[in-house]
């Protein structure tokens, strides 16, 4: 009984790491652009497709495919960032919703148009199970947890020490002042967006070996998983987002075990609504951004 | 009318964490009085206003309006009573609406008995709105805005907007009005008009005022009594003439 609970918590941490890598990008985008990015899952999908394409058509090894997936997505993000995301800085919320929904439709259905709508099998990665402390996990999952940690530490260091990171933090705190002090908000917005999209892609490529199926519409589910996390984590708050992602991962895992898998996708929003009733600004303050 | 002050504030405190923005201020406004509140930037005037009018919750102290304890009431709780209204420094009008609509909105909640009755479309509701409109037109004339009354308020100058806001506050016939820097950012030519309007409201409608203002000429000509805040505390209180001469006040302004 006790072991089961621990095992489910571990399972939760594994899925939490995946959510965390995706959500952290989305929350940074929110911090800077003040827009809920309904297209975020699509970059996850693009990353996966990029890697799948590299493996399937050019027979490249998985690590190279990871790089190709992330880089391709970042390049697409440059285009979307220039033509869409930069323009919604300072726009009303509903404009952001519509614009990102539009971007999501275009990305998703272009992939369907090019590669066909059917699902594909992803054949790279390290899927052999290994046993650690009595838990059996695919090697890939251990990789995911490690990468999740690296991303978290890396982001913390970046926003504290690098010029770009500091600028991101500044923009997220007060956009008007930045314009006055000479920080190029558009520039920062673009780079944050590319970073966020790249992280989503990374998460997609990393999970592809364990999730196997690759198809054009796979991003939507991820978007919906991520939305409650970033709200709970305090919009724009990187640390909070990590914690919220873990909480959600574990909660989902426990619900799937003790209540039923069919309620799993409701957990995110149900938890979010309970949290908001208790603390209307999320678990973590949105003030302490980054 | 009794001699009780219309507004009586005692020991008002407001702290944000370790910072005491307002630190035990006592202040009263007598009936029919125009009272000024001055102080250097950051002296806690606006926070003080917010605590009195319910926009912020005071940490300690008591606010009595017309003898009734209103400490801790929300902005809307206080406003709905229609006795004490306040203005804002920055946002002053519903900018997409024209002047008349602005004024009608300002009067509506004091004419209709409840929320559901405002959804009414019958003759009763129409008559109420018509009465409001009449009063609005009167006030627009008084404020000298008749020519621009159909323009969206947001398109008008800062001074005109302040006049609109001032006229709005007169819609429900309040007993006390709190003005937050009514002269800030307005055309010098209009200042005299605003001053006149305040005076008129004071004498003809019997409205008392508490005014935050930086323009010392306006304060001396308009106010019967002035209170000075510095670093969250009351520094001085007295006739405008005395205050201008007060050494401590001068130091606070120059040294602060």
């Amino acid at each position, binding site marked *: 009984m006790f072991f089961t609970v621990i095992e489910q918590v571990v399972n939760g941490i594994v899925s939490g790491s995946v959510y965390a890598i995706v959500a952290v990008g989305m929350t940074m985008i929110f911090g800077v652009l003040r827009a809920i990015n309904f297209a975020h899952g699509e970059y996850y999908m693009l990353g996966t497709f990029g890697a799948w394409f590299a493996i399937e058509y050019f027979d490249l090894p998985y690590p190279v495919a990871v790089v190709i997936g992330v880089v391709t997505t970042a390049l697409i993000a440059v285009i979307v960032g220039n033509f869409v995301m930069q323009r919604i800085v300072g726009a009303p919320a509903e404009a952001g919703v519509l614009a990102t929904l539009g971007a999501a439709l275009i990305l998703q259905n272009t992939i369907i148009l090019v590669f*066909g709508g059917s699902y594909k*099998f992803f054949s790279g990665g390290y*899927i052999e199970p290994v046993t650690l402390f009595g838990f*059996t996990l695919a090697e890939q999952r251990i990789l995911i947890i490690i990468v999740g940690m690296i991303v978290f530490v890396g982001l913390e260091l970046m926003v504290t020490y690098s010029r770009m990171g500091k600028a991101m933090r500044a923009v997220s705190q007060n956009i008007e002042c930045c314009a006055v002090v000479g920080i190029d908000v558009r520039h920062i917005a673009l780079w944050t967006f590319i970073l966020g999209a790249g992280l989503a892609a990374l998460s997609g490529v990393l999970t592809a070996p364990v999730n196997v199926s690759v198809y054009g519409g796979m991003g939507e589910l991820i978007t919906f998983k991520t939305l409650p996390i970033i709200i709970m984590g305090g919009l724009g708050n990187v640390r909070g987002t990590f914690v919220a992602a873990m909480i959600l991962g574990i909660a989902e895992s426990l619900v*799937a075990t003790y209540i039923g*898998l069919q309620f799993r996708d409701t957990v995110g929003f149900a938890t979010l609504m309970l949290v908001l009733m208790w603390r209307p600004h999320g678990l973590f303050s949105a003030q302490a951004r980054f | 009318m009794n001699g009780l002050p219309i507004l009586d504030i005692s020991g008002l405190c407001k702290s944000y964490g370790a910072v005491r923005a307002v630190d035990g201020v006592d202040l009263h406004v007598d009936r029919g009085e125009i009272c000024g509140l001055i102080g250097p930037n950051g002296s806690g005037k606006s926070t003080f206003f917010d605590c009195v009018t319910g926009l912020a919750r005071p940490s300690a102290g008591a606010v009595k309006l017309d003898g009734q304890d209103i400490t801790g009431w929300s902005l809307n709780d206080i406003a709905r009573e229609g006795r004490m209204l306040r203005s804002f420094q920055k946002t002053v009008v519903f900018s997409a609406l024209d002047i008349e609509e602005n004024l009608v909105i300002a009067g509506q909640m004091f004419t209709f008995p409840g929320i559901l009755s405002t959804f009414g479309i019958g003759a009763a509701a129409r008559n109420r709105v018509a009465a409001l409109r009449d009063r609005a037109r009167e006030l627009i004339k008084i404020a000298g805005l008749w020519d621009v009354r159909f323009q969206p308020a947001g398109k008008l100058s800062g001074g005109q907007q302040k006049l609109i806001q001032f006229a709005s506050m007169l819609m429900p016939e309040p007993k006390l009005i709190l003005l937050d820097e009514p002269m800030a950012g307005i055309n010098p030519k209009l200042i005299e008009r605003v001053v006149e309007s305040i005076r008129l409201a004071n004498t003809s409608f019997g409205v008392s005022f508490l005014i935050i203002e930086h323009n010392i000429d306006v304060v001396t000509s308009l106010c019967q009594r002035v209170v000075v805040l510095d670093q969250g505390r009351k520094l001085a209180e007295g006739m405008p003439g005395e205050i201008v001469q007060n050494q401590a006040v001068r130091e606070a302004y120059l040294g602060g």
Partner: protein
Amino acid sequence: MTIELSRRGFCIGTALIGLQTVSSSAFAARSEDGTVRLGLVAPMSGPNARYGSFSMRGAQMAAKEINSVGGVGGRKINILPGDSQGTPVEGVSATRRLIDQDHVDFIIGDVSSSVTLAMQPVAEDAGVLLLNAASSNPKITYKAGVGGFKWTYRNYPTDENRALIVLQYAAEKKGFTKYAVLSVDTDYGRAAIEFTKKYLPRFKSQILTEDYYKEGEVDFRSVLSKIRDSGAQAIIMYGNADSTPIVGRQMMEVGIAGKIPLIGNAEFNTASTIKAAPKALEGAIEAAAWLPAYESEKSKAFVEKFTAEYREAPNNHAYVHWETVHLLARAIEEAQSIDREKVRSALSNIHYTSAVGEVTFDDHNQARLPMILLEIENGKPAIKGAYSAEIDYPK
């Protein structure tokens, strides 16, 4: 103002006349153009496009085959697509458009049962033959034929037969009595389990855990660990093909691969699925209307051709749509006309030889389809028999 009005009046008048001409010319287009106008409603955009794309390809391939040998009765088959997005309202719009704008005589569709249910009355009102090839909700044919909708036919098995056959095989041949349920959270997965429950007492069996996963779910570890600890002997899974490899891999992770087999239907038998998680799928039992490895000339030729044409292996949806277009062509041939009424009666009396066996329709316009039972042995599907059963319609 008067001038203004009259000018506007003129404009509106012109517009009206214009519209009238458009609609009458559209009707003119309806005149025989020598083709069989066949509408295909399927999700073609959005997340559900992964089901619709196979349907479209299967149907198009069939049309190509028929047309390359001169069509049916000298008429080429012209497939007109309608995108349902897997949403009832879009499906109905697509159907309306196909009927009124494209003047189709026959419609094949949709994959999702709720969409099909919403399309039924539309097809019925218009008197257009609706031939469903992929929805499994039993209600569709409960309400068809003698049940009401004369124009709805279904060339796809309902879940009831399937559930019974699987359970019978698992109990009698394998001796299983304790099951865990892991099915897709759609009408398909839910209904199949409902029917399974109906037959459980007959085999003195019980369900220990019951879970439904959302389409597109990728994380089964929690539920699989629960199943591992529950003492179940087999996992009953009715789902879509894309989830099976994921479940298989995660079964390997939690250590139940090879110990607790999957039974039910979720394309356990396709080569790529088995390749994704060979150990987990060993011993899986499946009841399928068709499988790519099925030993018949027709079926093999289909798989080969499809793979060559589209660079991917066909799945069940591709097959059923391919077969259904052929079935319809056969009915048209027998009717010797594209008159809907005649084709409909031809369909009711048809004896069509599909790649799997003979297809006939019962009085509820439900196809009596042979169901193949297979087990994965040594990484290859081994066919254990073909079953066919009559459906018990609720009175």
